[in-house]
């Protein structure tokens, strides 16, 4: 969360590199040779390396939000549930989870927005490659505009990206207005 995404990309590339990356070494040890290669160099695995990396980098955000939310739930609720004889699982399902529901919409929206805009880790770890196996809208847009000087194409991608983010954001805005 605090890590610069560009550094996150480097770390993720290192983690998925043949022989000395810990993930690839793990699969190699299990005898799954296909997953023991450098993930970011192969079309079938490059995108998955990026997915795992972005999950790994973004988990801190949801953790901060949920832990702040958990701190606001009054202790009395749990005491009452205990008196009524609810087990830990039922307590979570009936008290914790419903009370955290407003946070779900925030976390889900923010996570989708973050992943739609993802650029740095793609840039540093795979460059959208091999070929175009792991390219994303944000990276493709940068490529069109600043590498190929095709500003029209870049504008099309930027518009598409903007409409996608707006579609994702509207539920959250509506929720915020209602409060």
């Amino acid at each position: 969360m605090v890590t610069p995404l560009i550094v996150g990309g480097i770390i993720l590339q290192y983690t998925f590199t043949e022989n000395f990356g810990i993930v690839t070494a793990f699969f190699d040890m299990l005898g799954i040779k296909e997953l023991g290669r450098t993930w970011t160099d192969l079309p079938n695995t490059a995108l998955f390396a990026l997915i795992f990396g972005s999950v790994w980098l973004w988990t801190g955000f949801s953790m901060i939000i949920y832990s702040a939310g958990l701190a606001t739930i009054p202790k009395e609720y749990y005491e009452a549930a205990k008196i009524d004889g609810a087990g830990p699982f039922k307590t979570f399902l009936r008290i914790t989870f419903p009370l955290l529901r407003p946070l779900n919409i925030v976390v889900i929206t923010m996570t989708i927005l973050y992943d739609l805009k993802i650029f740095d880790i793609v840039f540093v770890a795979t460059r959208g490659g091999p070929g175009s196996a792991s390219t994303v809208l944000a990276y493709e847009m940068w490529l069109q505009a600043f590498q190929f000087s095709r500003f029209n194409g870049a504008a099309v991608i930027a518009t598409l990206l903007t409409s996608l983010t707006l579609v994702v954001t509207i539920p959250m805005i509506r929720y915020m207005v209602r409060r």
Partner: protein
Amino acid sequence: MKISKTTIILHIIAWSVAFLWLLPFLGVFMASIRPFGEILRGWWIFDPFNPSLNSFVKAWNDPTYPLSRGILNSFIVAVPSTIIPLFVGALAGYGFARFSFRIRSYLFMTIVLLMALPQQSVVVPLFKIMVNLRLIDNYLSLMLVHSAWGLPWIILFMRNFFSTLPIEVEEAARVDGASDFEIFYKIVLPMSLPALASVVVLQFMWVWNDFFLARVFIYEESMLLATQRIEYVGREGPLGRVNWGALSAASIIVMIVPIIIFVLLQKYYVKGMVGWSVKG
């Protein structure tokens, strides 16, 4: 006190997950302090183990792209890009919290909506503007864009904070004959120091960690920011051979600044993060 079995199991699970999450960082750290030959078969093999700071020195004093210069450049950009939106945003947030005018709610909604916008969707027109202003390869372009980009969330965050302040204090000051600006600078701002600290921490970190905008606006070799230099320090050519030692050392040097800030000012960071996204 008796510790129940479930507590122990839960702790073991929590610690293992945390360890799993830290493993990649540990790997990069190992790669940065050990010669490449040692980590070729995996950094978790500790035989032989000869730690040294050579890679850090190499990255810091790289002949063509010294990271020392990059760190300095990043500070030159990040400090004004934090201070400008801090004051503008606080002023605007105060306006939204305390004054009513005709289009207030629509204007506010627009600003909140702007927060969702990806940088990629505006960067092409911004680039053209900066070309026309001859501000490419000039930190002014980055400072302007970062300030503008930070404003929506700062306005939202500060407005929410100001709404929680007791209005009686301000009313009392007004009765005593203080003007709006006097009230803002002498009474409201001193009361808002914790919120301002959250803004500083988050905004500074975002500007520091930014790579995309820097990549678009800064090309001149000596002006590259820290985040831009990492790659040049560790790689020969765009997808060329990787020098993992220097690359890892450079990553750690760039990463250490936000981490130090986070460790020292964690309280404000978390408050800012939560207030920014939850309280809405």
